[in-house]
């Protein structure tokens, strides 16, 4: 059997197939990401739904094309347009090969994802304080569309936290840390609540959870790490936009973009300086709110997006 240089022989066949698939997913997402990034730069695509769909395609399409590749080009890869095993076998210093570098990069990426995202999600879970919430806050939250039955909890353990939970069809939950009530003005808090409310739509909830599952499967893929972070930033931009546009809001006038931008700057000041990605995302959101970032939901027609996905589906399997 002709196998993969990443692995020694003697391993379980399922492990070999799984590792080979993961490598191909990473390779395909790199190629797809490069092509779509160059394309979006060329077309100067603004932030918005089109860009989110392209990012989702980079995360999802390679999982299918990586599985289809061997069936098309054969296990030996004779018909492949690019046989990556040639690149993986390239020699480096000290008897190492590019394959060893790839494994090391995968391990580092998985470690980063675990330390920065997955472990904190479990270890730094906010605890409900049990303190009563101010009446005006409860009224304000429940006046938002879809949140008529929302439960509000004050939590301890995380500074300046406002987060929603629960599936979109179930009873929503809102978690706030008490310092939010003291450090944000009423206008700023109203803007933040509308932002969280904008997150709580079935389409956004399901899309985010589906992509998170895909991203967990690709824990060692640096492209998936970048793409998912980029997707969440785009989602935050969209929710900011909805919050200040009042698209989903009730009868009250929507808060101003400046109020939300001020709230984000307060969060920015409270964010650890070492959290470079988090601070960069906050800066970008403020820029968008102040009109320094172009935003357009339908910057490309759906036919163009579908054609781009078809091109990916047809081209990527030939890279093995």
């Amino acid at each position: 059997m002709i196998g993969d240089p990443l692995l020694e022989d003697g391993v379980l066949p399922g492990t070999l197939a799984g590792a080979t698939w993961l490598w191909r997913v990473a390779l395909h997402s790199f190629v797809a990401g490069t092509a779509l990034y160059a394309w979006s730069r060329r077309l100067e695509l603004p932030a918005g739904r089109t860009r989110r769909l392209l990012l989702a395609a980079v995360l999802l399409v390679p999982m299918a094309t990586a599985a289809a590749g061997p069936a098309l080009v054969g296990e030996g890869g004779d018909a492949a347009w690019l046989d990556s095993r040639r690149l993986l076998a390239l020699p480096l210093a000290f008897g190492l090969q590019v394959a060893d570098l790839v494994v090391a990069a995968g391990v580092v990426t998985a470690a980063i994802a675990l330390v920065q995202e997955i472990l904190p999600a479990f270890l730094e879970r906010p605890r409900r304080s049990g303190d009563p919430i101010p009446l005006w806050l409860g009224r304000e939250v429940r006046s938002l569309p879809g949140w008529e039955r929302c439960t509000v909890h004050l939590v301890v353990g995380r500074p300046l936290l406002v987060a929603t939970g629960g599936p979109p069809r179930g009873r929503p939950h809102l978690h706030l840390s008490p310092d939010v009530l003291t450090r944000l003005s009423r206008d700023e808090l109203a803007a933040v609540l509308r932002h969280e409310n904008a997150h709580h739509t079935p389409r956004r909830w399901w899309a985010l959870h589906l992509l998170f599952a895909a991203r967990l499967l690709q824990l060692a893929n640096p492209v998936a790490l970048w793409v998912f972070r980029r997707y969440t930033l785009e989602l935050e931009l969209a929710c900011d936009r909805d919050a200040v546009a009042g698209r989903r809001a009730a009868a009250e006038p929507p808060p101003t973009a400046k109020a939300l931008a001020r709230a984000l700057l307060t969060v920015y000041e409270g964010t650890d300086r070492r959290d470079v990605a988090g601070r960069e995302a906050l800066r970008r959101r403020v820029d968008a709110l102040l009109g320094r970032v172009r935003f357009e939901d339908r910057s490309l027609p759906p036919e163009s997006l579908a054609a781009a996905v078809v091109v990916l589906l047809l081209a990527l399997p030939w890279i093995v």
Partner: protein
Amino acid sequence: MARFRGIATLLVVFGVLFLLLRALHLGVPLLYPKVLQGPFSLESVAEVEEYAGFSPLVPFFRPATLGERPVHVTVTRRPRARVAVFWQGERFLYLEEREGGGPPPVPENAREWSLATPGAPEEARWWRQGRTVHAVARRGDHWVEVRTDLPADDARRVVETLRPYRDLL
């Protein structure tokens, strides 16, 4: 055409990217031929070391019924370099060899050959399947699988006399 806005650009981007990938696919083996995994069909056992990175074990006992020279010499480089040498005359002998890795599978009814000759493989087990004698031998960190329709005694001598090709010259 407005419904497919940007698709021509995407095709150009993909075209350029795929040409670059193809250049890598074809160019890398020109610079480093060893990245090709094979299988390589070689003219003689003498070329094996260049492709596999080790000198293959070949028997210096080869009955005339096997023919003068092997009819196939094949090297596959990955995941681990493997060499297959096949003699076919009135009788056949097939050797498949690799350096390192775990032992090849051996059935429970396999018997052991104790090979006392200096330089012979440290361990060898054999069994029959129809008229074919199968054997698995280890010499140092080389594993050799043998298949032949030679009589069992001859098969044993074949295994006993396996030596690096380099030493037989």
